[in-house]
Each structure stands twice: as structure tokens, then as C-alpha cells.
């Protein structure tokens, strides 16, 4: 889960990384008292969980005279479709140099990967593409407690030595907060010292509980419902509902829909050991999306009992047609139950998907 900027910078502050003075406000009116601590000029940053805020109009510069008006403007905006409910007001920094610093997980080496550049401020993809030479990297096994001094020197090159302390502090954040990504971009040098001018932290969803973080994001009604049942569910923009077991098989079903010229309305992985009740909930959930014209169920199991699945589909009692591919234990019984109830059962995922795409036309 990606933390909002104000949450992420609080974490950095806890670890001794300097951050600019700032106040979180929930309405333009709250800016008045906040201005006392911010100085003459300040920056208003929409706290929305979306990348490229600057380009999308989510970051505005203001001063004491026009502050409330600019804040009013920002609170009235939607950034990438998300309404602005919170704004972080931070002091305006006199920037002399901009650096890039991030720590991420490297799938190939199974280590932490530290990236540093003395050309910060641009996004990392642009940096990697346009000036790969300016990006310094170091790979460190997370068994290490600190980043070794030689590694810090290699990363920094000619950059100021005091940045080394920031690298080590961010590494500690990365390890202790179960981060998948810890990024400071830009890390800036000002006449008053070094500051983390922005902060991005992505926390491992599997570690939220032990980190004491609750999933707080704006979920749709159906997404919340899916979470309650423990389904992996992603809403998409097409009209064919998809239910599968296993992420790979469900993704492959989506791809086949596209291959045959259809468009999937969702990704729903019911997980292992799908029983009657889970299948019923899954079918009802997907059918509850008004854009769904037809549902394709693709379940292939070792342990999945097809008769249970069949009963679950029938019990859901939805109005849209359901096309089913079922393979596993008690396959014949499952097929028979569905046929008698008038459902279409097909013998392969390809046939099932083809039929669903035709039905949606």
C-alpha cells in the first residue's frame, strides 16, 4: 500500500531525515493559522494517492497574499479523478541542488537495490532512459544492518558526504517499515541544509498488520465486498465478468477474452478450495456490476469440488447468463447439475471464453 506524502514524510522524520516545515489542512480556512509557521512563500500539495501530481495540477505555489484563494482552488480540483480532501502546505525551499534517492526490492538478486543520482527532480523512468550514466546503484542483502561505507561512497560519487547519513537512515526505514519502495525525489540541498522535499513509501500489503497500518483507501462497494470474502478483485472497463481460481489462470482468461475480441469487466480470483458459498458470493459480486452482460467461470482444480461449485453458481440466482468451464474432483456431477439447471458448460477455457465473447456482442 502506498502511503500518502504526509504519512510518508512523518516516517522519514521519525528516522531523523530532515523534512521541510509543513502543515496538513482539511479546508482552505485552515490555511490561515498554518501560514504563521510557513513563511512568506509556500507550496500546497494535494494528498492524493496518484503519481505525477505536479503534472496533473495537484501542486501549487502560493504566498501570504493569495494563499487562501489558491488553497480554495486546489480543494475544488479533482486530481486524476480523485477529489482533493487533504492538502499539505509546506515551506518554500530555496533549492541549490536536487538529488534522487530510492531503495527498492530487486527481484533478480533478492536484495535491496539502492539508487542515487545527482540529477533529481525528474521521474526515475525518465532519468533511467535519458541519463542512465547519472544513476548509481548498489545491491545490499537485507541481512545487513547498515549500508557499508564503501557502498555509500560509490553511490554518492562527488555528491556531499552528509548525504551518506540520509542513505543509511532511509535504508533503516526500508527494512524496519517493510517497504517495497522508499523514495526521496527530490532530496534537496538548500542554504539551510539537506531536506527530503518529497517522500514516497510503499508498504508490503502482507506486513500491514504488524506495521499497525489499516487499509484506508477509497474502495468501491464491490471492492470492499471482495476484500471481506478474501477474493482478489480488480475492476476493469469491459462487459464480460470473469471468475477464476488462481491468479495466473484468471489472468490468462482475461487475455483470452481480449484475444477473441471481447473486453473483461473484472479480474476475480476466488483462491484455493472454492466451495459452494464462496462461489455463490463471487458470482453475485461480479453480477452486481451493471455493466456485466455475461459471466465466464473458469475453475480448474485439484481440490476444488465441481459439484459444490455448480451448486454455488445456481444458488447465486443471477439474471445474466453464466458460461462455465469446470475441471477437477466430481467433474461429472458438477456438469450434470449445471446442465439440468440449464447452464452452458464447456469443456475447455477456450470454448468457454469464445462463447462468452459471442454472448456479450
Amino acid at each position, binding site marked *: 500500500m502506498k502511503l500518502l506524502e504526509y504519512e510518508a514524510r512523518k516516517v522519514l522524520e521519525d528516522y531523523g531525515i530532515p523534512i521541510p516545515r509543513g502543515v496538513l489542512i482539511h479546508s482552505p480556512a485552515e490555511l490561515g493559522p498554518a501560514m504563521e509557521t510557513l513563511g512568506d512563500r509556500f507550496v500546497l500539495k494535494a494528498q492524493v494517492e496518484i503519481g505525477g501530481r505536479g503534472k496533473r495540477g495537484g501542486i501549487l505555489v502560493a504566498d501570504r497574499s493569495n494563499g487562501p484563494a489558491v488553497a480554495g482552488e486546489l480543494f475544488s480540483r479533482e486530481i486524476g479523478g480523485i477529489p482533493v480532501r487533504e492538502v499539505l502546505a509546506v515551506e518554500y525551499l530555496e533549492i541549490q541542488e536536487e538529488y534522487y534517492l530510492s531503495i527498492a*526490492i530487486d*527481484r*533478480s538478486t*533478492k*536484495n*535491496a537495490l539502492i539508487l542515487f543520482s545527482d540529477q533529481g527532480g525528474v521521474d*526515475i*523512468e525518465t532519468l533511467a532512459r535519458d541519463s542512465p550514466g547519472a544513476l548509481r546503484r548498489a545491491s545490499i*542483502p*537485507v*541481512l545487513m544492518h547498515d549500508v557499508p561505507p564503501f557502498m555509500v561512497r560509490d553511490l554518492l560519487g562527488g555528491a556531499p558526504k552528509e548525504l551518506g547519513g540520509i542513505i543509511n537512515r532511509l535504508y533503516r526505514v526500508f*527494512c524496519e517499515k*517493510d517497504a*517495497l519502495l522508499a523514495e526521496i525525489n527530490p532530496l534537496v540541498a538548500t542554504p539551510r541544509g539537506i531536506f527530503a522535499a518529497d517522500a514516497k513509501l510503499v508498504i*508490503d*500489503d*502482507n*506486513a500491514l498488520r*504488524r506495521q499497525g497500518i489499516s487499509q484506508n483507501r477509497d474502495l468501491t462497494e464491490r471492492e470492499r465486498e471482495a476484500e471481506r470474502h478474501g477474493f*482478489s478483485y*480488480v475492476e*476493469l472497463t469491459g462487459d464480460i465478468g470473469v471468475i*477464476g*481460481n*488462481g*491468479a*495466473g*489462470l*484468471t*489472468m*490468462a482468461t*482475461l*487475455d*483470452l*477474452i*481480449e*484475444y477473441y475480441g471481447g473486453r*473483461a469487466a473484472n*479480474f476475480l*480470483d476466488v483462491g*484455493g478450495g472454492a466451495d459452494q458459498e464462496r462461489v455463490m458470493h463471487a458470482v453475485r459480486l461480479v453480477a452486481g456490476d451493471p455493466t456485466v452482460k455475461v459471466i465466464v467461470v473458469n475453475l*480448474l*482444480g*485439484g*481440490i476444488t469440488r465441481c459439484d459444490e461449485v455448480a451448486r454455488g453458481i445456481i444458488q447465486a440466482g443471477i439474471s445474466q447468463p453464466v458460461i462455465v468451464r469446470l*475441471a*477437477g474432483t466430481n467433474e461429472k456431477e458438477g456438469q450434470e447439475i449445471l446442465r439440468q439447471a440449464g447452464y452452458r458448460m464447456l469443456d*475447455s*477455457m*477456450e470454448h468457454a471464453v469464445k462463447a462468452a465473447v459471442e454472448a456479450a456482442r
Partner: protein
Amino acid sequence: MIYADRDTGVIVTGATGKQGLFHITLMNEYARTVGGRGVVAGVTPGKAGQEVGGVPVYNSIRDALREHDATASVIFVPAAAAADSIMESASAGLSLAVVITEHIPVHDTMKAIAFARLHGCDVIGPNCPGLLSPGEIKMGIMPVHLSSRGNIGVISRSGTLTYEIVDQLTRAGLGQSTIVGIGGDPVIGQTFIDVLYRFEEDDQTDAVVIIGEVGGSLEEEGARATDLPVAAYIAGLSAPPEKRMGHAGAIIEGGEGDARSKIERLKKIGVPVASRPSEVPRLIKELL
């Protein structure tokens, strides 16, 4: 076959849980059919003296090894303790740990894998269905009825999608040497490259199917490093960026790891990529 054979003795950790009991029974049913040793002991701390599916349970892997000859573990321990179980396996001297458990925090996985590496213990998974060498051994939860013995190696990040493609291979008369589910997490022990090196050393294996997903670049890295004939299927062509498609590892981040560019890179190094799962058998036949 690779990693293990019918003579391999297996210890199951998390043996007394529901999953443990269920799968110990299935693994040993398979071992009996193929004349293998199968699961020789179970481990759950504090449950020594119990029996699960006819297998004695011990408090620790070390205790189990005092009474039984085993070189590998299959881990069913819940996520919070699974990394510990990997490290215990390595520390006790086992050479292979197969981790079925899902939802292990990735930092725990990284530490446990780094620790296991120091002890020379290979880790398969986590969040994987395990491995199956038809006619030899099953370690994990793969259904055996879809497979048949033969000369095709299979490496996959998925579970059920693997069964789908194994089923297609079997129907096309293409038996399998070993099917390895390497797991759907962002950090996994054995990756495509490690398993491909094993297949290179394996006389039984003549060609390999790689079943990949969006996220990362481990598929291409593996395929580039081997001389074996390889065909691939990559799931997630229609996956939108920044959305996690079920597996923690199946996510397109920062424009990296999308299926289209993955497929292009594979094709560039001469790997045929199936546009549908059902195309895999034909591609493999063309390679043989």
C-alpha cells in the same frame, strides 16, 4: 527429473494443520503409487508424539532428522512463521525447502532466502504449488492426474495455470520430466534461471516450457542464459498497470514488467511465445 527423486525423504513442517494433514496424505498416496519414500516425518513445535496421516510428528527438524533420513522439507506453516521454517530447514542441513505458504512479508522472505543461501539450501517458492516429477516424486500440492512422465520440463510462476498447460501437454502426448512451480511472489528462491540450469544437467529433459506473468524480468533473464530449447506463455497481456493481479508479484510498476515488452524480449532472443495456453504443445513439438 531435478531437485528430488523417489529416494528423497521429505519432512513436512506445519504438519498438524489442516493443509498439512491433507497434503501429507496426498503426497504419500503418490509415493506409494510410484514406489517412493515420500513424507517420512512431520514437524510442529509442541506437537511431538502425535501422528499425522500415519507420519510421526516432531518438535523440530533436528529432532526429526535424528530418527529419519531426509534431505528436503515442504513448508505449510502460516505466513508469520514460514520464514522461520525456511531458516530452520537450512540450519538443520536440508538441501531443499519447498514453501507453499502465501502472504509471507517480502522482507521476511528476503532474509530467509539469504540465510538459506549461506547454508547451501535451495528454496522453491514461497507462494507456490511445489514440484512434481511424474512417476518419481510430488512435493507440494499439484494435482497428479493431469501429468504424465516424459521429456518436457515446466517452470511456472502460477498454480492453476500450470495445471492447465500441463493438461494440454499431456493430451498432446508430451510428458513432463519435472514441473516446478517457482511461486508468485516478487521475491522467490529458485527463479527461471536456476531451474533452467538444473534442466540443462538433466538427461531426461529435452525442452522446457516457461509459464510467466506480468511483473519483473525473471523470465527473460532465465531464457537468455540457457541453451535448452524453450517455449513460453506469459499471462497478463490485458493487465492494467499499477494493479495487482492476484499475486503480489504480478504487477506492472513504473512501466516495468508488462507482458507485451516481456514477450517482445523473449521473441528477440529466439523464444517462441504462445498467444494462448493451447498453443504451447505445438510450439514445443516444433522445438523437438
